[in-house]
């Protein structure tokens, strides 16, 4: 039984290796390594999802948001310092705006504390709402002129010029913090609510990053982001990318080892017990929601780190580049196809799906061009001008179809989670 699975897994991995080799041969090794680096970043993100979905059955429909937070953090912490801004008046103005924010928080907190003075609820609630509204408008109108001045005079506040690994780490921590708040609210409720809430939070994160021009330059994008390894200009494309790949590979190896240890350990057993039978686990005195919150945060930290790695590699932070299609659904396909709850399967799924995804674009365009060429030749058919962009939507359709088909026909993925039997 065991060896049977091994051969199947081995065969799949061999097929993957061959397709990567083919990719290298046809598209050049620089391109091939680029795809592999990106796939490795996606693999980190996918590992984050596989522990959320595979270990704990949590539905995260807003992966994009956590990936974007990671990218943002990589940008903010590692981009060179903008001396022009820090030596100008706006720096202290911005500080004052943040002080106003702090002040507003203190005032709101104080109003909330009125409860201790036994002020009746009928007074407290309207008072709180009015305070909230006024404080909110006060803070917003405090920030508005400062941020406008920053954008018009300095572009944006610039980065902090820190080492790359700090940016990645903070990216993970920020993503985890957001996850804490969302999870805290939603994890006690039905799993559908988490899906809706994460979907919403991802859009809000994106809207914030896109519109906060003083912080992120918005649609103008920030580049080039510094690399943790010598860049292509110094050592050439292939070496630089290969070095980058080794960094992400080591990172994956570490994550993999830690997850493996956790999965085998009491914590992993408890997680799976909760996933498979929530009621009886709760009855045995496990704090189900606390464990779920841990897993949710942990998964989002990995997503943040993966997102940071991806942004650093691309060398550009572009809030508009974060798309639910690429950064949420593609990752879902990687996980459910690879086998949720199986780390190796997820790794396989990430690389496999990403390679196919990348290859599908030139292939789709080739088919299209052929179709429109012969259509024109034989039927004098004129393809619409946006034919190419339309036809690429076939990929969106395929992603959806794959999700539904895998759920129906191979719910455990290509690498099913190995359930250990203790008899």
């Amino acid at each position, binding site marked *: 039984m065991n060896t049977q699975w091994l051969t199947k897994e081995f065969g799949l991995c061999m097929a993957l290796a061959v397709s990567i080799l083919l990719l290298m041969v046809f598209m050049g090794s620089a391109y091939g390594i680029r795809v592999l680096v990106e796939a490795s970043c996606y693999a980190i993100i996918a590992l984050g999802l596989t522990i959320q979905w595979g270990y704990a059955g949590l539905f995260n429909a807003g992966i994009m948001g956590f990936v974007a937070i990671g990218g943002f953090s990589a940008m903010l912490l590692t981009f060179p310092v903008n001396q022009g801004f820090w030596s100008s008046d706006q720096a202290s103005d911005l500080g004052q705006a943040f002080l106003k924010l702090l002040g507003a928080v203190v005032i709101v907190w104080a109003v909330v504390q009125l409860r201790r003075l036994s002020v009746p609820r009928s007074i407290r609630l309207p008072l709180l709402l009015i305070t909230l509204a006024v404080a909110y408008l006060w803070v917003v109108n405090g920030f508005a002129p400062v941020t406008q001045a920053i954008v018009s005079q300095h572009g944006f506040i610039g980065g902090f010029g820190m080492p790359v690994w700090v940016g990645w780490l903070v990216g993970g921590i920020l993503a985890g913090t957001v996850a804490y708040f969302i999870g805290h609210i939603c994890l006690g409720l039905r799993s559908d609510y988490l899906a809706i809430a994460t979907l*919403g939070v991802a859009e809000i994160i994106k809207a914030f990053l896109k519109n906060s021009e003083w912080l992120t330059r918005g649609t103008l994008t920030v580049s080039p982001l510094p690399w943790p390894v010598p860049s292509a200009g110094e050592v050439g494309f292939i070496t630089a990318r290969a070095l980058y790949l080794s960094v992400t590979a080591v990172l994956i190896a570490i994550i993999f080892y830690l997850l493996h240890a956790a999965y085998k350990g009491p914590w992993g057993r408890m997680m799976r017990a909760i996933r498979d039978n929530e009621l009886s686990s709760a009855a045995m005195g496990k704090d189900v929601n606390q464990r779920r919150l841990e897993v949710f945060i942990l998964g989002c930290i990995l997503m943040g780190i993966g997102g940071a790695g991806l942004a650093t590699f691309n060398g550009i932070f572009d809030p508009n580049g974060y798309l639910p299609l690429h950064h949420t659904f593609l990752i879902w396909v990687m996980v459910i196809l690879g086998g949720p709850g199986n780390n190796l399967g997820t790794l396989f799924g990430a690389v496999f799906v990403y390679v196919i995804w990348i290859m599908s674009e030139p292939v789709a365009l080739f088919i299209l061009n052929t179709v429109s060429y012969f259509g024109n030749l034989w039927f004098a058919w004129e393809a619409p001008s946006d034919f190419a962009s339309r036809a690429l939507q*076939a990929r969106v359709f395929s992603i959806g179809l794959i999700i539904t088909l895998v759920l129906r026909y191979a719910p455990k993925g290509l690498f099913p989670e190995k359930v250990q039997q203790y008899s």
Partner: protein
Amino acid sequence: MNEFVFFINNVLISGVVIGSIYALGAVGITLIFSILRFAHFAHADLMTLGAFFAFFLTALFPAIGPALGLPTAFVMLPLAMGLTALTAVYLDKAFYKPLRAQGVKPIVLVMASLGVTLMLQGLIRMFMGTSSRNLYIDDRKGIHRIDVPFELANRPIVITDPQILLILFLVVAVIALHLFLTRSKLGKAMRAMSDNPDLARVSGINTQKVVTVTWIIAGSLAAAAGTLLSLDVSLKPDLSFMLLLPIFAAAIVGGVGHPYGALAGGFVIGFAETLSVFNWAVLLRPFRDQLWFDLPANLAFVPTEYKITVPFFILLAILVWRPTGLFKGKVL
């Protein structure tokens, strides 16, 4: 008084219009949830699909509307609703029913509905491109300017044909739905199944028929909402993207599984949106001399680009304080 008219146009009318759209979507979400027990993520795409059906039909027969004195797309609405309902029924047959038969957890159905979302979006863009379109082809949008009978008010209250039709449609649809749920055998069976699906089966209720009817109702309401919204604004393929969060928020605010709650929830979300993006400085401007502070030019709670945060934070607030919604829906 002009400021007040501005308020009516931008808050009252806009709120009623967008609230009606959300309500029509949320009723469908809530019905599907109460019968099939999962959050149907592809619902906003059914709305877009319905609007595209209406667009196709309008393009095919552009002269019908002017002949009847109504927007063509509105005349075509029943057909578009039928087509969308049919699509919904077959989507269920193809993608959700097999999973239900396997007895999967509801969350797997949610995921399948995300897959369906992507398929619908891909298909719509494949056939229609990504540009926005006008649902008026051979006719023009009727815009009514109602002068306010007050001195000092020289701005009219503005309301368009599609907005009037939308409000009328909502009233008719709600009455029809109410009568269906309380008077007809099938409607009662629907409520029974929402209450207790196992007992419904034991009582000999044809549960498959109830499921089909649920999809028909949800699909046709979605098509109507999508079409009427596109008539009023324009038809964009990413319509669904802007609708998804608000309609879910509306359904949850109203109490999941509670059609009248969804209706109320739709208006709560709609008005919350228009009130929070409304520039209150406009209303305060006449009193600017009496104020003790300088009136900023813009005193909106939420900039328009952050409108999506409104339904989201209402959703979070309701999940924190009253997860069953305003009308005590199903406890989840």
